[in-house]
């Protein structure tokens, strides 16, 4: 699964920073049918966690109610230099992750 993070590379201590992630995923609802009428099995990203140096910053439980190629934007306070790690899992059990470090001055 391909994902793209948009996180500032550096920030001032105590600054509010914006974290954005978009994951390439069909978020298949399970309510669609293929050309011969068979139900296309549901496959959505059910859980996404964002951690900073191992501590949870943000967690989302998602459903078919989230658009394909899910996009999430949220915030955190830059307290120290470290690494953001995003991890997610879909209905098929496929896992994905992405990480990026930040320098705080």
């Amino acid at each position, binding site marked *: 699964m391909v994902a793209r993070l948009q996180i500032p590379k550096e920030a001032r201590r105590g600054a509010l920073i914006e974290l954005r992630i978009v994951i390439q995923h069909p978020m298949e609802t399970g309510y*669609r049918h293929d050309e011969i009428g068979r139900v296309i099995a549901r496959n959505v990203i059910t859980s996404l966690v964002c951690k900073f140096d191992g501590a949870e910053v943000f967690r989302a*439980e998602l*459903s078919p109610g989230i658009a394909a190629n899910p*996009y999430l934007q949220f915030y955190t306070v830059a307290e120290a230099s470290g690494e953001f790690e995003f991890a997610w899992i879909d209905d098929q059990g496929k896992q994905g992750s992405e990480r990026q470090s930040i320098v705080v001055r």
Partner: protein
Amino acid sequence: MKRRHFLAGAAGALMAPALPRQARAQYNSIEPLVRAITGGAPLRQGRVTLELPQLADNGNSVPMRVSVASPMTAADYVKSIHLLSERNPVPRMATFHLGPRAGRAEIRSRVRLAGSQRVTAVAELSDGSFWSASAQVVVTLSACMDES
């Protein structure tokens, strides 16, 4: 395969998707879901802002912004935000868990809407109170309805 069997099967395949479509075109009360989230605690209006377009051309991808007025300190912060739909086949669209580290209780995403409806956001605060806001959206082309 006999021709009449093939025709019967083909007709069945064409009819089948029509049934759940009708079944889904109804509004469900989000009341039981809200009660499951709050555990019976009072749900107050305010503090939460839910932004959705009034008119969405395509229900498959509707920009959504939810925010909660909160200082986001260790003593007073937003624990979670639930996004509820009265018309989607899965009424609990998303749950976001935050903490004092978030700094600002605001989330943006893109949602799917199976038809025009009222979407509700319920926020749980660290003091145990629940706050809510709703947004009415008219959807021209619904999501989840495009089976053929």
